[in-house]
């Protein structure tokens, strides 16, 4: 009997000790939730967005898609044209990514802590990369439109600049992460900079670099659709054309072709990633 009472008291003691902790945690949780909710309500009011409209628009959109976004016979006659633009877009994103990756790798060697020289230069490289990464690709494409017009080079350079910025940051992180130990070891054998890079840094970082490159190719196909709409090139232009002419079945063929391409690239890159890790 006494024992039981003792235990009861003990439990109560524990219970007395814990609420403070729980109350504190619950309070921060509630505060966090309130902040998120407040931001949501504020943003909705400012932009005129209503969640109810948003949610109800989804089934309506699905119905509309079911009715209009089915390729018809007329759309299929345009398949060769769509495929030729799709090919152009795919090649564009591969070419952009490969060239940007080579340049970004050179910059990342200069910007990395392990391979960079001095303090000022790596910092400068990081600033340059941040600049190219953060200027939106739409700004680059509008800017390039002025001189290059409706040319594939407009899309090429617009994608190139942002890809370069993104990959430089990613590569610097990769090189920093993997190469410190082998750079030290190869330096101690008396090797000079380029042998160290080619025999040590590149083999160590390769799988990381490859993963980023494959990811960027996939991303660039989506981005080039956007840039195509703005600059009148590639697959984006074709979608915009049929969309504005209200030829939705053909526009849907364009969408489907993009989906197939992106999924294909995703599958390939997953396979490659599994093989090289």
């Amino acid at each position: 009997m006494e024992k039981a009472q003792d235990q009861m008291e003990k439990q109560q003691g524990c219970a007395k000790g814990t609420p403070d902790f729980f109350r504190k945690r619950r309070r921060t949780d509630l505060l966090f939730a309130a902040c998120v909710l407040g931001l949501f309500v504020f943003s909705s009011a400012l932009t005129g967005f209503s969640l109810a409209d948003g949610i109800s628009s989804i089934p309506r959109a699905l119905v509309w898609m079911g009715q209009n976004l089915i390729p018809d016979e007329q759309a299929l006659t345009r398949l060769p044209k769509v495929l030729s633009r799709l090919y152009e877009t795919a090649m564009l994103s591969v070419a952009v990514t490969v060239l940007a990756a080579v340049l970004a790798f050179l910059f990342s060697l200069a910007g990395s802590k392990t391979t960079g020289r001095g303090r000022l230069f790596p910092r400068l490289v990081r600033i340059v990369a941040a600049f190219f990464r953060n200027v939106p690709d739409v700004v680059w494409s509008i800017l390039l439109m002025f001189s290059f017009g409706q040319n594939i080079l407009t899309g090429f350079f617009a994608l190139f600049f942002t890809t370069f910025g993104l990959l430089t940051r990613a590569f610097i992180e990769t090189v920093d992460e993997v190469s410190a130990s082998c750079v030290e070891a190869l330096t101690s054998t008396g090797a000079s900079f380029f042998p160290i890079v080619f025999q040590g840094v590149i083999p160590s970082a390769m799988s990381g670099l490859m993963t980023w490159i494959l990811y960027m190719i996939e991303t660039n196909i989506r981005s080039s659709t956007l840039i195509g709409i703005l600059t009148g090139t590639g697959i984006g232009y074709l979608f915009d054309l049929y969309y504005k002419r209200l030829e939705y079945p053909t526009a849907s063929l364009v969408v489907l072709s993009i989906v197939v391409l992106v999924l294909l690239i995703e599958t390939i890159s997953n396979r490659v990633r599994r093989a090289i890790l």
Partner: protein
Amino acid sequence: MMNEAAGNGVFLGMDPARYLGKMEKSRKGSIRIKSKSRSNVTVRLVWIVLILLTVLAFATFRYKQIDLTEAVQSTFHNIGTVFFQPELTYDTFGGALYQLLITFCLGALSTGIGAAAALFLSLLCAKNMANSKVAAVVKGFVAVIRAVPTVLWVLIFAVSAGLGSVAAVIGLSFHSISYLTKCYAESIEEMEAGTIEALKASGANFWQIVFQAVWPATASYMVAWTFMRFEINFTNAVAMGAAAGAGGIGYNVFMAGSFYLDLHEMGFLTYMIVIAVILLETVSTKIKAKVK
């Protein structure tokens, strides 16, 4: 230098028959030094394919007729105008700031919706929570959503729901959902296996496990991922304003550049966007550092 003369002679003097048999020859007949791992072969193969595709790309692009040197020169001139002579004429600073806020709000709304939906979808496709069939279906669904470029989602919703913030937010949300579902599911899969098993053994049901173990254990990672997505959504909201007329500062950039043809104006707006993005990036990096 006596010791150098000895060099590795001690080892070379060893009976070569003991190791000659272990050497392998390469195709050219010299002694092979590389390993024949699948990884090495794959990397080399992928590089060869990528380089060939790049060469092919440049060979088959339709460049049309363009004076490259002149175009490059004028591009440099324009870049100078944009970045070194920014100036507002059509917009007021306050007005531009307001539009920046709108873009921020579009980003916040789509991140919020994306996060809320992903919170539940991720439970359905994390290997340690859902059965594999459901997981495969959800993963496939999410992959298809992601394969459609954001701008196309916005435009599709613009037709069916009318142009405006609804189309923009829902269109932007779609990618957030699929991105965050993938990230959240990965965080859940990285949880310690024992935690969920222990709760299951004690007879807890699905939602008890979710509330008592899964969400508390992964909350910090999820917050970090969500902020990263917010960064991306802000940039995307800028792009949607420009390419799909979704409002916000992106639309002003588009008008300045393509309608008024005023590069000074575009430069000023670009600086505002860049500063906003860098601020977001700093906040997100700090949160990431705190979480890890």
